[in-house]
């Protein structure tokens, strides 16, 4: 069979291809395969292109094609009769190691099948052009699991403002933190043990806040938040809430 038509189509624009060698009776036994590949040779999902063969008013045969995504496509039209289908079924069953009885029955049916429609096909290529739509935004990250948290403040304590001093005391005596099993540290930036957390806050000027999971052994899990220390206790608790605490 020979498929002829445009070499190039705009994305989302339809195109017609004529199919020579396809008969009206073949359409009952016809399958159409459209395979797309992107610039990297990766297969484009099949639902991005639609190919429909049909018979026109004048008795000619045509293929309707529209693609949602630009790329290079290979369009194959296949006439696969009853006998040909059974040949494929037997081959598939053999490679899949289907149990012998079923395979035997398939072979039996296949051998008895009269088939006037031997396997035939035709192929052409098509380039679909046009800017693809932007990829859909990634799904929002799942909400963090709730649990115990470390709330770690790192700053030069000499610079503590009255507002920060107030917040440190509010966090220190917070019944909310203690009721949830959270722990609060108010570290000076040159204190022994503070350096890894200070490094974590690289690029943050002024007092910095880090929130991590608080593990069962009292260690710190992965960092869930890092940034400037909020101005108030309420704002800090809001960030803690956003990160499962």
């Amino acid at each position, binding site marked *: 069979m020979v498929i002829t038509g445009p070499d190039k189509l705009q994305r989302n624009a339809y195109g017609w291809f004529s199919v020579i060698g396809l008969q009206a009776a073949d359409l009952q036994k016809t399958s159409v395969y459209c395979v797309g590949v992107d610039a990297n040779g990766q297969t484009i999902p099949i639902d991005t292109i639609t190919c429909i063969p049909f018979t026109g008013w004048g008795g000619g045969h045509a293929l309707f094609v529209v693609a949602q995504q630009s790329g290079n496509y290979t369009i194959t039209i296949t006439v696969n009769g009853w006998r040909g289908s059974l040949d494929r079924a037997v081959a598939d069953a053999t490679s899949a190691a289907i149990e012998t009885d079923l395979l035997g029955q398939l072979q039996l049916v296949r051998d008895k099948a009269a088939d006037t429609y031997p396997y035939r096909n035709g192929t052409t290529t098509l380039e679909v052009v046009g800017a693809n739509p932007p990829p859909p935004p990634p799904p929002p990250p799942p909400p963090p699991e709730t649990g115990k948290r470390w709330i770690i403040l790192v700053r030069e304590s000499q610079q503590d403002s009255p507002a920060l001093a107030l917040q440190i005391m509010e966090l220190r005596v917070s019944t909310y933190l203690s009721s949830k099993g959270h722990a609060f540290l108010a*570290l000076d930036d040159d*204190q022994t*043990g503070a350096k890894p957390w200070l490094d974590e806050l690289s690029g943050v000027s002024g007092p910095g806040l880090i929130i991590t999971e608080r593990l069962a052994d009292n*260690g710190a899990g992965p960092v869930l938040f890092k940034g400037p220390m909020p101005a108030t206790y309420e704002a800090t608790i809001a960030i803690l809430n956003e990160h499962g605490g």
Partner: protein
Amino acid sequence: MAIDPQFIDVIPPSEMRTCLPRTDRLGASWPIYEDQVDTIPRSEWPALAAQQDRSLQPLVRKIKDQGQEGSCASNACSGAAEAITVKQFGIEAWIELSAMSLYKRVASSAQSGSTINDNIREISTRGILPTDTPQNKARFAHTHPNTGFGRSLPTDWEVTANRFRILEWFDVASMDGFVSAILRGAPVFYGRAGHAIFAVSVKTENGIWYLKYANSWGEWGEDGFGYDSESFVRGSIQSYGAVAPRVVSTWDDWLIPREMAA
């Protein structure tokens, strides 16, 4: 609630006046607070002092008792160190510290007394031991009671004491610096009228500013706390010394967790 007048500007009995005047010049040994940090204008004091949650009093886990010994300055110094420890690391990290383990190194006898400056110098260089509570004995190789000048320090005490040090502090030179330090979250230990204590909050009443302090007289005053008026303290700050500690040592690795790999 109004301050009970009997706990304002208390002059200790003569035998308890054991905080000695400073022997070095203000600023000669350590930075002066007012030179390093902006003092808070007096116009802002009332609003800040009215915020009850600002008080450092919750950091004081236990009122000390110096007994009949002259260790007030060591008790004030160690009490302030304990408060900073709780502020930095939390209540679980609180370790009761032995004022006597400090006093023995800065005094010549049970009643000789000591200076504010000698105490901060010693606690910052060689540190202080935990008290000899059963819990502390189980955790640390060296402990010491809070009273009892005649008892020797344990052998190799420096190993444990070195873990408990005040690392950063300022000399405070004025009432404005004193109040600013407290409003910025630093307790201040100081001497006046021959006695040392440490302040945890400020309060105004009838136009007079007061410092609320933790004493070392056990069950005394307002649950162990008393008040000094500004006029009572003002002249003493430079003669006895006032120190605002900010940072104490990380006395154990577990106090600050390390991040685990994701």
